[in-house]
């Protein structure tokens, strides 16, 4: 009899929807259907049962082909590489559990790794801004229960966080927001008229790369000072009207995304948006939140935070100290500058998401990639170690974009004999210990 697993947590994006219902086969091996998930989340579960999934580690041969090897061989190869390399980039972590990360960090501390997560090419800019000026924020339930002004700035949840608007930000009725969408005014600021903009009551089209200037203009307008006629292509009357309307809010929230983190000025765009939010709190209640994209990238920042005090780009290469400097210990910079000797990728795919020059640099170093599936990175790595899918075939803790942790659920068994991230890392850790005890480094 197929059965339903309820309250399943979606392991795709930072929205961490926790109301999925997954139907699984009697033998716990196959997913038969997914309810409540968005198109992307459903695809994630569907991927689990695709035929042809790689089930054992593979090693790249001289002719470019891959040969199956045992887990033990892969673990030994990886441990040797880590022990030998003077400086190793250990990047990824966003699609695995906090428990697995913790073991990874222990390894990094022993072998001199630099632990970086997907924030580095996503909301790293936001983290820099928060390091610089803090952030007034809230949990997503606060938005649902209280927000009467919602601003989407440089983010497109309709595409990137498909259920965000219905669960938290536009449509839901909450305790003080019984009218749902009707009681909220939705703004969208973007350089494109996105599908999110189509859901908004008001769209402000900013010239690409002028967000900092426009936010500066908003801050100036909130203080009641004069503005130039146009800022970033937006007429001053429109800026002033929106500033006044935001002041009349009871509870406002700004959601922002990679439209701010990736464009010119990067962290400064967020920094000034945070400062606008801070200013608004002199008039009413306002919050701001990063639309964290990658499922548990927030969790990686949290674990690194409590273990080392930095949210990403944590340089443990000296083994006796932890350091952090974005622009130096961030993955793309390390690869651009050829500052590392080896790469260990886990639970992410830099091959698809890093600029090509960084990956060319990476491809010239010994590389291990740990991922449930074949992806771009696995195909330029020396070794690909497949593992169980976290949040589908094994549970573990994950953090939502508002830093709320949720223990994810195992839905089905992984393929026979396949290790989880935690098991694999534990074995690598043990092997590293053995090598170090023998004077391996």
């Amino acid at each position: 009899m197929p059965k339903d697993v309820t309250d399943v947590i979606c392991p795709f994006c930072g929205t961490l929807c926790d109301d999925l219902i997954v139907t699984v086969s009697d033998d716990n091996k196959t997913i038969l259907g997914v309810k409540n998930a968005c198109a992307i989340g459903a695809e994630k579960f569907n991927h689990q049962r695709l035929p042809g999934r790689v089930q054992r580690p593979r090693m790249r041969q001289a002719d470019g082909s891959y040969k199956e090897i045992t887990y033990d061989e892969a673990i030994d190869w990886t441990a040797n590489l880590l022990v030998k390399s003077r400086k190793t980039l250990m990047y990824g972590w966003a699609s695995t559990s906090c428990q697995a990360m913790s073991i990874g960090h222990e390894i990094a501390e022993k072998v001199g790794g630099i632990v970086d997560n997907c924030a580095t090419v996503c909301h790293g800019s936001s983290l820099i801004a928060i390091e610089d000026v803090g952030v007034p924020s809230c949990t997503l339930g606060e938005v649902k229960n209280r927000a009467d002004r919602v601003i989407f700035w440089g983010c497109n949840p309709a595409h990137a966080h498909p259920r965000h608007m219905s669960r938290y930000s536009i449509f839901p009725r909450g305790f003080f927001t019984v009218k749902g969408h009707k009681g909220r005014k939705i703004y969208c600021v973007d350089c494109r008229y996105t599908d999110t903009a189509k859901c908004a009551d008001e769209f402000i089209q900013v010239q690409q790369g002028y967000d900092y200037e426009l936010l500066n203009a908003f801050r100036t307008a909130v203080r009641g000072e004069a503005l130039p006629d146009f800022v970033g292509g937006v007429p001053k009357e429109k800026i002033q009207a929106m500033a006044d309307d935001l002041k009349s809010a009871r509870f406002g929230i700004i959601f922002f995304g990679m439209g701010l983190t990736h464009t010119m000025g990067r962290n400064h765009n967020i920094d000034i948006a945070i400062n606008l939010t801070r200013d608004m709190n002199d008039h009413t209640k306002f919050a701001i939140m990063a639309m964290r994209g990658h499922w548990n990238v927030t969790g990686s920042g949290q674990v690194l935070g409590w273990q080392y005090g930095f949210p990403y780009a944590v340089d443990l290469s000296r083994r006796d100290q932890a350091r952090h400097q974005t622009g130096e210990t961030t993955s793309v910079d390390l690869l651009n500058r050829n500052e590392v000797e080896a790469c260990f990728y886990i639970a992410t795919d830099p091959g698809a998401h890093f600029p090509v020059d960084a990956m060319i640099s990476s491809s010239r170093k010994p590389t291990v990639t740990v991922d449930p599936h074949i992806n771009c990175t696995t195909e330029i790595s020396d070794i690909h170690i497949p593992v169980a899918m976290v949040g589908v075939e094994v549970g573990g803790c994950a953090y939502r974009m508002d830093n709320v942790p949720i223990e994810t659920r195992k839905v089905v068994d992984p393929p026979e004999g396949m290790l989880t991230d935690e098991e694999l890392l534990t074995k690598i850790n043990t092997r590293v210990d053995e090598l170090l005890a023998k004077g391996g480094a």
Partner: protein
Amino acid sequence: MEKKITLNMITCRTIQQGVGMEAGKTSQKYFDACTIMHMHPEDMKKLGVWKNTNVKVTSSVGSVIVKAVETREDLVPGLAHIPMGPWANRIVPAYTYSTGEPCFKGFPVDVEVAASARIMGAVEVLQDACGLIRK
């Protein structure tokens, strides 16, 4: 005469790219979602390119062949969009302004029609750049 226009490029998420990513990086869904460049109709006219025709996009760091499509989410003229993925990243400058964050959005590209050029696969486009394809 070979026409060339310069556009401001942004690389962004799309839901199709998300679905494709989860279907697998080697899947047709991913390929279909990410090997396109959204253009404004005016720019297409300026370049003299028909909808769904391959173009060569060149930035300061390299070139990639993708298919020009008329955008569904409106752009302003002069702005172009390739969904995130190894194709887009073939042309994304890796310079980070010491923030760790490369130039994913807002870099100039030259676009020219390349109707008969072939679009590479996801793995191929990366392996090719890394010199891992044996010719």
